[in-house]
């Protein structure tokens, strides 16, 4: 008997032991897994090239000092300089305020949308989404035109006698917040709206039937049930704000310097790639820390879209 014949005989014996086609089924399952891996590899490669490599490169750069050798100076400078502390404080303050204002404006708006019949809701949703299709830069400069000293809002306000002096609406924190709230609002409304839509009207009917006034139904039933969506939207807005660049640059008038703006300054003014990289790394770590902290308290699956 040849080797091949012996192997076949052995396989046959194993097959008989485990049932007629157990070995074939196992082989086919392995093959299926291999082909799935093969299919995802282009995407994995792409992420590797355009995400992991540059971030890794920045990480490496942040540890290179001005003399070109390994050094922690980029990080120690951040700890020692008061200017950097102020930049981080501004970044968090602007992000908090933007998120807070977005919640105050967005929650009632999402609630209103969720109550509308679906046709009307779709039209209104379109209005919410419309700004999404306009370039961020265009929207930011549009605000510059509207908000400046001789801009539309100040002209009208003074023309109607609402205020005498032009209000300082731009080139400061006010302008930055107005612009950022406008840009961030859809990011809050979309997850919030979808979570509100999932609240069955039966819950509110039941609350009402059990004796709850409309206000009690809202605060004791609807609001708690909408919280996951609110947290999701707020977190998205907050994290996006942390890395925001264009709006503070244009509407802040150089007075609102957030981390991203300082990164640009480091590169464009001082040609200091190491310092810029270190800022980027710190911002990334802080953002990840916030997401991690949030995931401990909140069901983050809903936010990232892991399903329910």
């Amino acid at each position, binding site marked *: 008997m040849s080797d091949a014949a012996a192997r076949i005989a052995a396989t046959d014996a194993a097959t008989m032991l485990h049932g007629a086609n157990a070995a074939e089924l196992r082989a086919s399952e392995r093959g299926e897994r291999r082909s799935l891996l093969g299919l995802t590899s282009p995407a994995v490669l792409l992420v590797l090239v355009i995400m992991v490599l540059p971030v890794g490169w920045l990480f490496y750069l942040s540890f290179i000092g001005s003399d070109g050798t390994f050094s922690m100076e980029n990080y120690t400078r951040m700890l020692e300089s008061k200017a950097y502390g102020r930049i981080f404080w501004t970044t968090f303050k602007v992000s908090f305020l933007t998120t807070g204002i977005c919640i105050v404006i967005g929650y009632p708006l999402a609630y209103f949308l969720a109550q509308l019949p679906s046709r009307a809701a779709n039209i209104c949703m379109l209005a919410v989404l419309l700004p999404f299709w306009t370039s961020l830069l265009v929207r930011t400069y549009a605000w510059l035109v509207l908000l400046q000293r001789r801009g539309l809002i100040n002209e009208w306000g003074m023309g109607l006698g609402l205020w005498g002096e032009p209000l300082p609406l731009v080139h400061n924190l006010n302008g930055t917040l107005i612009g950022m709230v406008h840009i961030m609002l859809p990011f809050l409304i979309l997850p919030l709206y979808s979570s509100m839509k999932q609240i*069955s009207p*039966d*819950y509110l*009917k*039941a*609350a*009402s*039937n*059990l*004796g*709850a*006034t*409309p206000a*009690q*139904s809202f605060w*004791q*039933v609807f609001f*708690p*049930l909408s919280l996951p969506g609110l947290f999701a939207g707020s977190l998205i807005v907050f994290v996006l704000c942390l890395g925001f660049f264009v709006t503070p640059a244009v509407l802040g008038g150089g007075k609102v310097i957030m981390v991203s703006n300082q990164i640009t300054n480091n590169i464009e003014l001082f040609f200091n790639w190491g310092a810029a990289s270190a800022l980027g790394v710190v911002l990334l770590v802080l953002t990840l820390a916030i997401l991690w902290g949030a995931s401990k308290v909140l069901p983050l699956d809903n936010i990232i879209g892991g399903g329910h």
Partner: protein
Amino acid sequence: MSQTGALPISISGVTKTYGQVHALDNVDLEIKSGEFMTLLGPSGSGKTTLLMALAGFTRPDHGSIRFGDEEIILKPPHLRDVGMVFQSYALFPHMDVASNVGFPLKLRKVGRAEIDERVRKALGTVQLDGYGERRISQLSGGQKQRVALARAIVFNPRILLMDEPLSALDKKLREHMQIELRHLHEKLGMTTVYVTHDQREALTMSDRIAVINHGKLMQLDTPRTIYDQPANRFVADFLGESTFLQLEEKAGKLSFDGKPVKVRALPGGSNAPILVLRPERLVVTGEAAARDMNQFKAEVTDLVYQGDSSLMYARLADGTEVAVRAGTRTGAAIENVAVGDAISLGLHRDDTVVIRDE
């Protein structure tokens, strides 16, 4: 059975239209104190609209609804003080079982200790002792149903509304819960309005059944009367598996295929008389039948064995196919026939139900 706490419900002239559709068309209905009343009808018949009008979620276009002596048609739902079990149960997912059941008590500013005590008692009533800490998502369908019921009765409402509460349960559990709800109603004695499209459920549970179709009240009676003496073709068709047979009428005498048909009662009117044949009321008889039996010649066309009963299909002289249902006990006449046999079907005079065509 009625308890001091129960309230009668008086519905009169209630109409609700959606566009051109009459969801409720001038409905009058008196529900007695402590009664178990079922609103029975197909989907879209208006039965749920009527229940929602009682709960306050639908405002009728006109009419009057009174709980006891009080007109409540303009009263908002949260002031109506009626318990309700929703089809979806509507248990609050962010609260545990005890908080769900305690919710109506908390709203009524009942003290903490009393809430705990009454929640415990209500959960005991629905046989869920010790389930207070559970999350809603941890409960099975049947348990959710019980929690919803506990929540609806914990504040001692004088009226309990139920919107197809058992429709999500499997058949066995549903039949068990029907009996249990019935017992619970006897124990608590609150006026109960129960909506279902399941005729067997309605027959099992109700003191009286209101059959509703196209927003109109078709018949209001006890289960036995509704089944045995349907007022019209719709009721006869909706309850039971009825076959309709056109009869001839001459000078107040009914006949089919030239043979006289004996009836217990013939409803008045000039429309054509129709015989309602129900499978379980027909029997296979020999040639010689009892005096008060009507006999119909038929040919067996099909036989179906269903375990607890057998179903025989037979064609009558005018071509109408009727079904005959009989038990599968050894020696039953139906067990000895074969497809193609010419047989004789008997129908007792008192089971001979005649309605007028519409």
